[in-house]
């Protein structure tokens, strides 16, 4: 009888212990969000979005005269849109095609090799992609730091995610759908592009949004490639700013430290928007 009680208590105690640890493990998230909102929220105003980042000089002058430091992160926002946008334009078509091939030819030797490479790409640290884009683009093509080099680094990072999500979501489509389309006399190309891909759209879209949310906050590869810029720069062959790059600059500059919280809050919001919409899409569009 006593043994029974002991076992029950032990069971309960374990559950409470697990619960306690779970709380501890997710406390940092609460703390991060609290800190970002508390310190960054009141700096999110119009000029934050419309003005470019202040220079150290601006800010020194402002401080010495007692005025608040003016400026925003417009150059970073535009740069991020540009770098991530071009990265997506490269990674999505490529990744979708590779995903189609892998899903359609899963037992070929060539597929195994491509699949293995995809796994390898997914595991490579982002800083290494920075080195690669530096060697391939900064040195060889744009002859200097450039937004395009940043895009290349990010697009290789996105590639495995896009490939896998395409492959997985096409594999979920029942074979009967492909048969139905072919039985109508449809070509293979149109069967894949007009029947299979649209049916797999929710999974595909989710994967794409998640891959964007993963690279949008990447800093390390951009330090080695896009470098940063004090002005809004639309030329992709020139150094370009990005929100994470600005955060890094603000962090390193004692005069600009105030700007880090609003920038980080905004970056976090961007990541969350992509993340949450990815989840919503996969829930809403799910095909039974």
């Amino acid at each position: 009888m006593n043994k029974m009680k002991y076992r029950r208590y032990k069971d309960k105690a374990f559950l409470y212990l697990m619960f306690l640890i779970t709380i501890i493990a997710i406390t940092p998230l609460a703390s991060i969000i609290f800190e970002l909102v508390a310190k960054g929220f009141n700096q999110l105003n119009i000029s934050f979005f419309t003005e470019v980042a202040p220079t150290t000089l601006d800010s020194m002058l402002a401080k010495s005269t007692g005025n608040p430091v003016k400026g925003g992160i417009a150059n970073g926002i535009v740069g991020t849109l540009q770098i991530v946008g071009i990265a997506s334009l490269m990674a999505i078509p490529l990744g979708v095609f590779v995903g189609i091939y892998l899903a359609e030819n899963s037992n070929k030797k060539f597929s195994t090799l491509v699949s293995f490479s995809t796994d390898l790409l997914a595991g490579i640290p982002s800083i290494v992609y920075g080195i690669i884009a530096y060697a391939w683009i900064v040195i060889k093509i744009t002859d200097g730091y450039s937004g395009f080099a940043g895009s290349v680094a990010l697009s290789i990072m996105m590639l495995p995610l896009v490939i896998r999500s395409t492959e997985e979501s096409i594999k979920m489509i029942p074979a009967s759908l492909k048969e139905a389309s072919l039985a109508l006399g449809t070509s293979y190309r149109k069967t894949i592009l007009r029947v299979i891909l649209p049916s797999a759209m929710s999974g595909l879209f989710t994967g794409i949004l998640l891959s964007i949310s993963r690279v949008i906050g990447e800093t390390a590869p951009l330090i080695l490639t896009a470098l940063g810029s004090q002005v809004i720069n639309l030329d992709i062959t020139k150094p370009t700013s990005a929100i994470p790059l600005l955060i890094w600059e603000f962090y390193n500059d004692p005069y600009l430290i105030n700007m880090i919280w609003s920038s980080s809050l905004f970056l976090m919001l961007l990541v969350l928007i992509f993340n949450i919409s990815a989840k919503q899409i996969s829930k809403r569009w799910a095909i039974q």
Partner: protein
Amino acid sequence: MGNTINNNNIALHIEDLSIAYTKDKYAVKGINADIYKNTITAIMGPSGCGKSTLLRAINRMHELYPEIKVTGNILMKDQNIFKINAMEVRQKIGMVFQRPNPFPSMSIYENVLAGYSLNGIKLKKEEKDRIVQEVLEDVGLWEEVKDTLHKKRTALSGGQQQRLCIARSIAMKPDILLLDEPTSALDPISTSKIEELLMKLKDKFTIVIVTHNMSQAARISEYSMFMYLGDLIEYDLTKKMFTNPNDKRTEQYLTGKFG
């Protein structure tokens, strides 16, 4: 049933057709048969007898699996279907599958017209509307879905979905309609609706249906084939086969001794 096919009543002439999955493992062995126009021909037999394999070869769906080897000929209007473009064959020979498989990314309207849009055939709006209405009326779905034609992901019952799939096939105006156990996933009421529909459709199309349901074959078909282990054991008028089969094995199957 001679070797010449100038007979106007013949829709398909199957000649010495063999299908192998792997070397020397034949799923269909040397079949000869003529399929008659505007009739329903049922293919029966215990599972694994090769009936679905035979049916799928008729519109060359076996080509999805490169390891399958086919020998022999199937002639349609004097043309060997293995000698012409597979896509062309499939436009003339439609197929409906065991499980209803409407395209989930398309509305009902788009599903009916899928054969046209996917083959890049452009139609005028009026033409499209006319085909959709006509075909959906043919399959008895018009009244049920006419208000939700353009809605995506409408909840159709299994029977409705299967009728939509039949509509999608016949919208292309094929000569022949192949059905691979089209009612095996459906309830009895939906099944009888599909059966009625097929009896009506045979005026316009030649129908070949694979079924594991003997009474279904008896109810709707004029001709029946009985296959066993890849051989075509018996092919005759359905009435004759059900009342007085020639082969002992056919009789055993029909009386439920195996299968």
